[in-house]
């Protein structure tokens, strides 16, 4: 059904219609507006080529969608200042409201114009140029926000090729125009030829006007070649079309002519390494799209080298007998006309025979001219038609795709003339199939055109027939059958009076329609005319099909290059011979070299010498087997650094299955490899550290299952005959702890809770110390450290350390401290002897006196029993008091085995010590002030040693006061709770104090203010306090003397053992 609808639509298109499309309607809102300025007129082939490239590229962009405006400045024809001003005013009026996003300029004059009038016409809009000679741009200076594609005229390469084609070549004549661009171009060509200056003589072709030059060219010696450059204006001031000028020169030259522009190829020149303006347009448009999409401009304009091609004209080669095999690889040889005779000889023979026959017929008919005027006219029409038919059938097959369209249009024009119809049109099926769009149309003068497309629904009857491959024709609208009423209305609307519509069939498919119609008068369509038209339609169909195929091929190549040039990887192609035929822009950017340097085997220069052999071997093996390959090697970057690239090659095959070479891509993997190496090294280092740890280390997962053990763990397990199934990787350590707990091992419970707490995240880490008689005669101490594994999956690291030696050292240190402290206590007690004696003598005196008084009281005749009883009571109390003093003394001086640390009340400790020294202070007339806090937290430690500390502080204070003559004599003792959870004791004296820098020194051993003092008191006090996790320090009082501070940790903060 789709197909049918399509054909209907196609039919419609063919109808001569009076409808004039209104192209100036409202514009759809577009993403980006781009103005393309050309220096030259629209008709110049170079401009047409470039414009095609630009449009193909920009129109393919979806984001942003691009709206293209084009202006042709034609600066060589209209150079006056007034005209320029008017042109600027005109362009300003036209484009100012449009808010252009980007301006592209083709040719140096256009760039010069754009930069000169930029402020007025399009301020701040980026400019992308193309087809610009490097020198022109230098001249206008590098304006900001201007980039583009240089014109890379490469006459040197062309001369290379010419020397291969014509080894006897000795001289080169360079032909060019007199306009500014012409002169630049000629200079460029001569520069390119310079490198062969030793081999060939280079001279300009003399002659001012083009005619002179043509004459000169015709007389060039045989060992010469002609290089034709740009001729925009000749020396006589005549404006020319460069391609036309080239065609004239080439046609008349006595020697082969070579070109530097693609647009000249096909006009008689042999060809060469030419600038392809279409490729220039594509490259510039791609650059423009990049900028429109927000990419930064390249650092420098593109070289333009990638827009050059090897293009040769087969016909010119044939004319000069040049050997095609000597052409550079990858050359595009066009216009082959080797086979038209063979391919189309029946058409040609038929045409010629027909011509002869008809000529004879015409001769006969002329005799009866008056009578047979109509027949004669018909015959004339027929003859010219047949001639056209023959000409076209030959031409279409020889024509390059790009020239098919003009030829078709020319043919249509001739059809209009020859057949006397008003409109001839070719239409193709629209892409969706719902209509047909007119591709070529020709109308007689004064006849309105046709709508660009017709819908199948407008001419259903016609479309159905065409769809079946039938010719539709009518001489009058009235001839149309009743069922074609809809069609009739449509034709009437279009002004069509008579019509022939011939389907265009290609490959068995109806792909379009050729339609001839009249609007001025009705017309009859003889049978033989219909047959010939059918023949004509076949020729058109074939030509259009070929054009489309070539366009598709061309488009796909362009698309590949466009894609490859913008691919984020380096892309290369090689031919079936293994030599490189293409590298993309990224490759060139990477190596910083020109394409010629890289093609063939040139790119191997960049491969690191050490990698060359291996790379070659691998590639060769793959190549021989037509297999994919992946190779890593070092490739030199533009800055000289060798980068590691991963090169992947895939064989490619032509449609017929023949091997066509390789396509490959390279990625710079230097950083990746470095990162991999770093990662590997870090892993190895981690493993080495783990293995070499002295402790027995195991890592467990969140469930407590062992996931790794180090050597020490493994050794320990092995040495103690442990079951590796229960203590090796894969065993559950938690389960093992549970088993030990059940077995009654005392260390199991704390170990288990420590591991579980860390695994559960309740504790940041845990330490458990335990003793174990693991298969050894002596008890050894171990420390278990549990640290969480800091990773998302959780887990923990468990480390067992044998700390027996440390424990022993600690015990030894404790014992020594104990002894020293004891000695110091004894010596302190000696100092206190007098005071202590008093404390004991007082109650003893009271006891004695009371006892004797009692004796007397009971002695007399009337014993005073009441008083005697009181005396006894007092005796008991005093005895108790004496006993208390003795106990306090014993508790200080007595030597005991280490007792487990117990919670102690700081106030109680202070009170007990004060009892011992109170009298001593009295004796020295030192007042003691007690300021005990309400609730200092309990501390843990050895009561005797802590009392010793307090005693030392008090005696130190009292001695300090004693050492000075006058002043207040007072000691203040205070206790308090300090945050967090610490008990503090402070002893302040009113003695002389010490200098700020001596505050620490007083804690050193053997530093004493007393001539007979050992200086051990404060030193021992500090070691006692620090062993218990506390701190001692001294500060100077604001008034006089020192305050000694002791801070003791409260059990709430004591680390879990």
């Amino acid at each position, binding site marked *: 059904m789709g197909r049918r609808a399509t054909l209907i639509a196609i039919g419609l298109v063919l109808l001569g219609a009076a409808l004039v499309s209104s192209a100036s309607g409202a514009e759809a809102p577009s993403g980006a507006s781009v103005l393309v300025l050309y220096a030259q007129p629209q008709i110049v082939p170079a401009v047409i080529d470039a414009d095609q490239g630009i449009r193909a590229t920009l129109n393919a962009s979806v984001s942003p969608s691009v709206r293209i405006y084009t202006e042709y400045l034609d600066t060589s024809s209209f150079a006056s200042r007034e005209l320029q001003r008017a042109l600027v005013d005109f362009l300003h009026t036209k484009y100012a409201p449009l808010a252009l996003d980007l301006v592209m300029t083709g040719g140096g004059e256009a760039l010069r114009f754009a930069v000169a009038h930029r402020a007025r016409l399009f301020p701040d809009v980026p400019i992308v140029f193309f087809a610009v000679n490097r020198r022109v741009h230098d001249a206008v200076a590098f304006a900001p926000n201007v980039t583009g594609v240089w014109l890379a005229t490469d006459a040197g390469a062309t001369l290379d090729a010419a020397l291969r084609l014509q080894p006897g070549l000795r001289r080169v004549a360079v032909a060019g125009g007199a306009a500014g661009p012409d002169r630049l171009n000629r200079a460029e060509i001569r520069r390119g030829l310079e490198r062969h200056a030793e081999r060939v003589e280079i001279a300009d072709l003399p002659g001012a006007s083009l005619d002179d030059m043509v004459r000169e060219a015709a007389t060039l010696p045989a060992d010469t070649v002609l290089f034709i450059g740009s001729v925009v204006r000749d020396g006589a001031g005549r404006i020319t079309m460069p391609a036309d000028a080239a065609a004239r020169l080439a046609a008349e030259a006595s020697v082969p002519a070579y070109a530097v522009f693609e647009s000249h190829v096909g006009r008689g020149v042999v060809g060469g390494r030419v600038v392809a303006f279409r490729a220039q347009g594509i490259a510039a448009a791609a650059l423009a799209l990049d900028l429109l999409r927000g990419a930064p401009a390249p650092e420098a304009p593109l070289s333009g080298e990638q827009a050059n091609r090897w293009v040769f004209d087969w016909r010119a080669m044939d004319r000069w007998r040049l050997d095609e095999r000597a052409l550079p690889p990858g050359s595009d040889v066009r216009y082959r006309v080797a086979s038209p005779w063979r391919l189309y000889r029946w058409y040609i023979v038929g045409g010629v025979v027909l011509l002869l026959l008809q000529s004879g017929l015409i001769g006969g008919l002329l005799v009866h001219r008056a009578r047979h005027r109509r027949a004669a006219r018909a015959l004339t029409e027929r003859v010219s038609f047949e001639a056209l038919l023959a000409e076209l059938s030959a031409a279409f097959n020889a024509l390059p795709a790009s020239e098919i369209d003009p030829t078709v249009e020319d043919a249509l024009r001739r059809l209009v003339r020859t057949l006397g119809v008003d409109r001839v049109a070719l239409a193709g099926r629209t892409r969706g199939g719902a209509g047909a769009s007119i591709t070529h149309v020709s109308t007689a003068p004064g006849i309105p055109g046709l709508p660009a497309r017709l819908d199948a629904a407008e001419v259903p009857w016609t479309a159905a027939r065409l769809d079946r491959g039938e010719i539709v024709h009518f001489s009058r609208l009235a001839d149309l059958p009743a069922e074609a009423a809809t069609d009739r209305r449509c034709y009437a609307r279009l002004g069509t009076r008579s019509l022939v519509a011939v389907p265009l069939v290609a490959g068995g498919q109806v792909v379009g329609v050729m339609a001839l119609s009249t609007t001025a008068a009705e017309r009859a369509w003889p049978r033989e005319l219909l047959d010939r038209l059918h023949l004509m339609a076949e020729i058109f169909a074939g030509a259009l099909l070929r054009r489309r195929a070539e366009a598709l091929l061309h488009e796909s190549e362009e698309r590949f290059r466009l894609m490859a040039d913008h691919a984020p990887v380096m892309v290369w192609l090689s031919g079936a011979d293994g030599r490189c035929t293409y590298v993309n822009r990224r490759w060139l950017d990477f190596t910083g070299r020109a394409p010629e340097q890289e093609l063939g085997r040139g790119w191997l220069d960049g491969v690191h010498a050490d990698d060359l052999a291996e790379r070659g071997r691998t590639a060769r093996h793959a190549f021989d087997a037509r297999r994919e390959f992946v190779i890593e090697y070092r490739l030199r970057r533009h800055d000289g650094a060798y980068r590691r690239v991963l090169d992947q090659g895939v064989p490619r095959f032509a449609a017929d299955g023949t091997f066509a070479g390789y396509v490959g891509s390279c990625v710079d993997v230097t950083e990746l490899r470095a990162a991999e190496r770093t990662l590997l090294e870090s892993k190895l280092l981690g493993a080495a550290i783990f293995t070499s740890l002295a402790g027995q280390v195991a890592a467990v997962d969140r469930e407590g299952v062992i996931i790794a053990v180090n050597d020490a763990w493994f050794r320990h397990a092995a040495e103690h005959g442990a079951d590796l199934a229960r203590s090796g990787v894969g065993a559950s350590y938690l389960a093992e702890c549970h088993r030990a707990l059940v077995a009654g091992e005392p260390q199991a419970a704390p170990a288990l809770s420590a591991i579980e707490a860390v695994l559960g995240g309740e504790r940041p880490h845990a330490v458990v110390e335990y003793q174990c008689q693991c298969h050894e005669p002596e008890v050894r101490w171990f420390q278990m450290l549990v640290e969480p594994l800091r990773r998302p999956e959780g887990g923990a690291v468990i480390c067992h350390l044998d700390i027996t030696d440390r424990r022993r050292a600690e015990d030894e240190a404790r014992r020594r401290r104990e002894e020293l402290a004891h000695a110091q206590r004894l010596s302190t007690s000696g100092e206190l002897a007098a005071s202590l004696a008093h404390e004991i003598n007082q109650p003893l*005196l009271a006891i004695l*006196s009371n006892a004797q008084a009692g004796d007397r009281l009971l002695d007399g005749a009337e014993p005073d029993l009441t008083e005697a009883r009181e005396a006894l009571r007092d005796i008991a109390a005093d005895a108790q008091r004496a006993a208390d003093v003795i106990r306090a003394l014993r508790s200080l001086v007595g030597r005991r085995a280490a007792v487990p640390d117990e919670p102690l009340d700081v106030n109680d400790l202070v009170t007990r010590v004060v009892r011992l020294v109170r009298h001593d202070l009295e004796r020295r007339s030192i007042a003691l002030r007690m300021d005990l806090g309400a609730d200092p937290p309990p501390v843990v430690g050895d009561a005797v040693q802590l009392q010793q500390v307090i005693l030392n502080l008090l005696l130190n204070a009292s001695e300090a006061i004693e050492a000075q003559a006058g002043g207040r004599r007072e000691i203040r003792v205070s206790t308090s709770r300090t945050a967090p959870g610490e008990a503090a004791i402070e002893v302040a004296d009113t003695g002389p104090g010490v200098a700020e820098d001596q505050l620490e020194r007083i804690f050193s051993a053997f530093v004493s203010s007393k001539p007979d003092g050992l200086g051990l008191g404060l030193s021992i006090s500090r070691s006692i306090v620090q062993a218990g996790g506390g701190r001692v320090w001294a500060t100077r009082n604001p008034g006089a003397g020192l305050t000694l501070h002791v801070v003791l940790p409260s059990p709430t903060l004591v680390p879990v053992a």
Partner: protein
Amino acid sequence: VSQPPLVLVADDDASVRRALSRLLRTAGFAVETYASAPALLERPSPDQPVCVVSDVRMPGDSGLDLQARLQQTHPDIPVVFITGHGDVPTSVRAMKGGAVDFLEKPFTDEQLLDCVRRALETHRHRRAEHTARQILEQRLATLTPRERDVLQLVVAGLLNKQIAGRRGTAEKTVKIHRGRVMEKMQVGSVAELVRMVERAGAPPPWAPAAPA
């Protein structure tokens, strides 16, 4: 009615005060206890024989301070010090200050009581001497200068004739003065007069130095 002798006890230790007080009371003394020296010094002067028993060391004013103050107001009241072992330097100072006795702790009841009795005796003796001197001074005050001169010479052992010769007067005149001296001094014999002056202790301060 003679009052029982009084012992003043000063000690900062309450149990020691109680014990000493009890012991002294059983021995028949009147006892008053004081916790500090100033408290004791505020007490009005007693009439009966009295002594002070004090600890050498006390907070605030020590035993030695007490002794010094007492020396100024009641020099005749004896002080018995209780000392600890080895308190020699303090003891020497106390002795120089006029302490009568020392008791080293611990001591027996007899030691204490002996000390206290001796001290009281001393006090009694000092009080008697004090009284005799006051009588002598009162009687001496009634003598004329010529009579005092004669008294000195008589006590010095000179005869009337010697005195008359030394003063260049008649023996008869000396005899009359001597009779008035004996009368005013209420003594019957020269021997009694000499004893009286001796008992009063040191020679009266006003007495001019005897000629060589």
